[in-house]
């Protein structure tokens, strides 16, 4: 096997190792940070999501109508 080939193989191992190490560390960090954030800085947004889903209906139907109209307009005339 040529020298080039062997350095290619080494690059493969080092490379895949780094990729896995990097993404695995990202998994760990995400898990830690997500639980910290969900515990200590919960998004008001998400907490009230359920509530909004009930009351939001009127808004949504108006918006849906307008959205449809505007989309038709834009597809036609853009």
């Amino acid at each position: 096997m040529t020298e080039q080939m062997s350095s290619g193989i080494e690059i493969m191992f080092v490379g895949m190792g780094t990729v896995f190490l990097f993404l695995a560390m990202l998994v760990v960090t995400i898990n830690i940070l997500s639980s910290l954030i969900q515990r200590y800085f919960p998004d008001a947004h998400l907490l009230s999501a359920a509530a909004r889903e009930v009351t939001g209906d009127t808004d949504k139907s108006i918006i849906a109508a307008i959205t449809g109209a505007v989309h038709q307009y834009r597809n036609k005339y853009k």
Partner: protein
Amino acid sequence: MENLLSLWQSTGLYNFTGGQAFMMVIGFVLLFLAIKKGFEPLLLLPIGFGAILSNIPVAGIAEEGGILYYLYFGIKTGIFPLLIFMGVGAMTDFGPMLANPKTLLLGAAAQFGIFASLLGALALNFVPGLEFTLKDAAAIGIIGGADGPTAIYVASKLSPDLLGAIAVAAYSYMALVPLIQPPIMRALTTEDERKIEMQQLRRVGKTEKIVFPLMLLFLSILLLPSATPLIGMFALGNLMNACGVVDRLSQTAQNELINIVTIFLGLAVGSKLSADAFLQFKTLGILALGAIAFAIGTAAGVIMAKIMNKFSSIPINPLIGAAGVSAVPMAARVANKVGLESNPHNFLLMHAMGPNVAGVIGSAVAAGVLLSLIK
């Protein structure tokens, strides 16, 4: 009379070389694929057009004084691919990935295609007439990253002569993902595996989405600074979008700015499709290796998903592993489609988006490794 003669001697007919004519045909083929077949038209149309323009005899559009010559500076300096990466970052929603971070590992596994085809390129040196340096091999391997700007960025740094062929291969295979991946996915999975339904993803809050790009950048700074130009610009775009306080910048980054740069980048890539550089035995090798890279990356993603399934209590449908190659969002859609064939109520799209965007990060990391080891 003299003028008439000098005009005739300045016609394209008089000056054409066979190589130029052939490269124009290549350009027309790219336009055909872009327009009629819908192959990544946003990139392949300007690339194909740039190929035609740069091979016009006499005109010198890609030589000093010509517009394509100046546009190429945007690639040489890395500015164009990095700005596109910023725009892509602004368009990317990391929500599905943050909801199920394990799927990041699928995006890691699929990068095996990069290194396998790097080895493949080196192996092709045993074929008489082919000669790839380590730099060439790395630039070819990055096609397996299935990510256009990353491929162009790496190729422009390591092997600018192969840039044209590499960019064309990368975008073509990304367009061919719906043809390349399904047979491999079916071959490596059982019907039962393809039917696996996955748990609904939790909603991810705004704070997590703001923190993620910074965390990603920070990790990249600590471990792999050579990947930070790519990952940094990607994280900047993503942060601009996620934070919600600079919407006008985020909108511009994902619309007008990325459009302008896409036109320029495409034309400039096309200017590297010259007969000298492209009409070589090498190019066939690049095309073959690119296909292999995509296939191996797909297989590695699926196999990784099967392995993870062994160790995880929460079921993972191995089809989403194929989305790990990136090719956003095509690969995720393919996973969804193949899943629906086996189970019409099984919507894998959002689950596949996790490995899909993880694949983008994975290739940027692989690019960083290549740029840092090969000089």
